[in-house]
């Protein structure tokens, strides 16, 4: 889902940058007010962890593979979508500048997709569903929908940029990420949440903790 350079015209790139800077302002404020100094090293190490996770291939039934994005589960574990946003911003900046994965001019668009849409959707869907159903299925649905809708947004952006036709983009991106969303993001995030919930529940933010846990 990393859009490369040249796929979005400069004028539209600026729009995404403006949105990202706007959200970034709130995220930095949030970090100042809600994060004690202890959590800043945590965010950075999580960034390194998410980086490693992104390089892990997860098999998909048709012989291809995909990888996890990780911002929904980070937001859920830390209890705020801004955490996912910050971690993702850091990861995407390093990927763009040091690895050439995703472009520099489109960095704004990439952060908008994977940092903003995915984190906020993942977290708020989880939060809305948690009281209704058990926490683990809501992690699954939240992460899955986050990735699926992000891919749709990505297809829309490429359409607005005039790079890819709408229907073909929606079909390709949608189908591929529908499967990745279920397998790579949804199931894996649910397993991660379940395992951390069992082993170290103290690490999960109180807002996201599964209270019905059997001890």
């Amino acid at each position, binding site marked *: 889902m990393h859009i490369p350079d040249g796929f979005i015209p400069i004028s539209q790139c600026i729009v995404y940058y403006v949105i990202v800077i706007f959200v970034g302002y709130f995220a930095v404020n949030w970090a100042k007010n809600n994060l004690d100094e202890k959590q800043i090293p945590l965010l950075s190490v999580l960034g390194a962890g998410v980086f*490693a996770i992104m390089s892990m*291939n997860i*098999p998909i039934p048709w012989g291809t593979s995909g990888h996890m994005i990780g911002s929904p589960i980070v937001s859920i574990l830390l209890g705020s979508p801004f955490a996912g946003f910050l971690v993702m911003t*850091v990861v995407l900046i390093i990927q763009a500048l040091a690895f050439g994965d995703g472009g520099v001019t489109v960095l704004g668009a990439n952060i908008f997709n994977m940092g903003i849409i995915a984190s906020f959707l993942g977290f708020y869907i989880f939060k809305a569903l948690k009281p209704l159903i058990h926490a683990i299925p809501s992690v699954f649905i939240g992460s899955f929908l986050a990735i699926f809708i992000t891919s749709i947004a990505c297809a829309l952006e490429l359409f607005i940029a005039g790079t890819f036709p709408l229907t073909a983009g929606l079909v390709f991106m949608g189908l591929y990420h529908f499967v990745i969303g279920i397998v790579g993001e949804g199931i894996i995030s649910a*397993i991660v949440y379940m395992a951390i919930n069992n082993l170290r529940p103290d690490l999960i933010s109180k807002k996201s903790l599964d209270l019905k846990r059997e001890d």
Partner: protein
Amino acid sequence: MKTSVNTLEREARKKSAIHNLDSRIKLIMTLIIIVYGVYTTNLLNLLLIEIYIIFLVFLSKISLKYYLKRIVYILPFGGFIAIFQPFIRPGDILYTLPFGLSLSYQGVQFGILLLSRLTVSISMIVLFSSSTPMNSIINAMRRLGFPKVLSMILSLTVRYLFVFFDELDNIRNAQKSRCFNIWNHKISYMWILRQLGYTIMMIFLNSFEKGEKIYFSMLSRGYNGESNQYIEEPSMKHINYFVLILTIAIIIFIELK
């Protein structure tokens, strides 16, 4: 991936005219060239820029094999979309293929433009990242006015990146020694997913635990939430400004020619 992470730093720590440039200047140059590459629609301009980049690559003494390998590794992601442009873009039909596919003139034009833009931006970013250590990239960003909190998170992330790739490698080796293979069709798919989930969970747990440890070790060295860093890089020399002005001049010349 892990080997690429390590070779990346090995190449970036060589010595050459390009390596010795100030990382801020290199960052600004990279941004200017990429923005111009995305902005221009003239193929000749893109070709001239590419020639300038290749000239810089020769100056930088980066191993060519390594350089090309990295470009070839990155290109497919966007190249795929560029190559399909002739088939999906409406326009004057050049050639009709079976199954209702047709090549359009506008599509071919646009595809070539996309591919050349992609080549210019990727070759520049690969040159930049193989001639600048990651730490200097972050320092350059910090010194150019990137928000303090974010640049601190960035510099710590870069530091721990390598640790995590090692850790991931350890987990993978341990799994490999038990004959674990994600493509094995004889074991249940859900089981494979669960193992991968546990691997990822281990990385998360490690992150949490390391984060705590790092915090304490920083605290014991006087960390108070503010980050003031000593930067070892020397101050700007005149040659740096010269290279920057040269680059801008070349771009203006290409645009106006």
